[in-house]
């Protein structure tokens, strides 16, 4: 049984002979076509196939606009606690709601506050500044609505 060590095999490297080069050419073409296809697929995924012509007349893709959030952002979604099952003396299993983070005292306080708020009607002051729109109020409307007490000299003379 003939065995060749790594060194012996490497020594023979300069005597390389390529059998059926046409088959190897075909094989190389196959690998190249797969590589190209993958590259195109990757590019398509990045820019959805959309492109535009820039100021120099070159076709460019929108790949910088369609970036998705990285899957490894570091923020992990909070896991919802599984509902606990309580089994009573008769063997009935019931799903129990998990406890909120606040205690019973806090619940009472919250209820009292809610009750207090419900009984007292609250006065709401509306301020233009705090309204949703940040647009300034039309100054002509302000003048029209304004109630003014002005001194009328003629009316005063009548008295």
């Amino acid at each position, binding site marked *: 049984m003939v*065995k060749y060590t790594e060194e012996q095999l490497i020594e023979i490297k300069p005597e390389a002979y390529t*059998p059926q080069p046409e088959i190897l050419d075909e094989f190389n073409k196959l690998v190249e076509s797969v*590589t190209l296809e993958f590259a195109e697929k990757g590019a398509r995924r990045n820019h959805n196939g959309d492109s535009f012509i820039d100021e120099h007349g070159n076709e460019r893709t929108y790949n910088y606009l369609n970036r998705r959030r990285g899957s490894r952002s570091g923020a992990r979604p909070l896991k919802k606690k599984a509902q606990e099952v309580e089994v009573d003396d008769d063997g009935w299993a019931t799903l129990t709601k998990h406890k909120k983070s606040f205690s019973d005292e806090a619940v009472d306080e919250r209820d009292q506050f809610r009750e207090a708020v419900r009984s007292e009607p609250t006065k709401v002051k509306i301020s233009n500044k705090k309204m949703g729109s940040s647009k300034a109020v039309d100054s002509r409307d302000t003048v029209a609505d304004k109630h003014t007490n002005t001194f009328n000299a003629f009316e005063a003379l009548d008295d």
Partner: protein
Amino acid sequence: MSEELATQTEALSLENKETILTTKEDFTAKHPLNNKWTLWYTKPQVNKSENWHDLLKPVITFSSVEEFWGIYNSIPPANQLPMKSDYHLFKEGIKPEWEDEQNAKGGKWQYSFGNRREINATINDLWLRGLLSIIGETIEDDEDEVNGIVLNIRKQVIKIGIWTKDCDETKLKTVGERLKKVLKLAEEQRVEFTSHDASNDKNAKPQIVL
């Protein structure tokens, strides 16, 4: 007398006899290998209609060291293969599939290189060392356990595995130990042997770890 001599020397005639110089292939095969080897390639799936059998293709068969180098120099190196590609080098007549009669009762010694950036620089050398140990048959003594070697290119890892005929631990340890040397692995880097039967089960533990 002359007729008698002619009949006696007929067998020595050089006419119509093939010699090692007859064909170009034979002439170049100065260093024949023990076995004929076939290079296979698994093409990555480009569209979903392609199944495993369409993707696995035999590329070429060779039987000498010279031919091996000719082929090796003409095909893409390991680090230039597209993702999800595999190279397989198997003894002629053995398909790189679990279902093949020669593989059915066997398994594989395997190591996964996790750090893609790091391994990209050295994978060509390691894969070549693996190939040389297979065709030179120094990966084992006289056990005749090895059927072939496989390279898997994946997104996260690159794997090199040696496929064996059976799962007899006593015969397989040599192969595992030598694979570790071939792949230049440190003592704490473990190669694992898993039978093809167990490979179906994702939770199966390797049969041997070295």
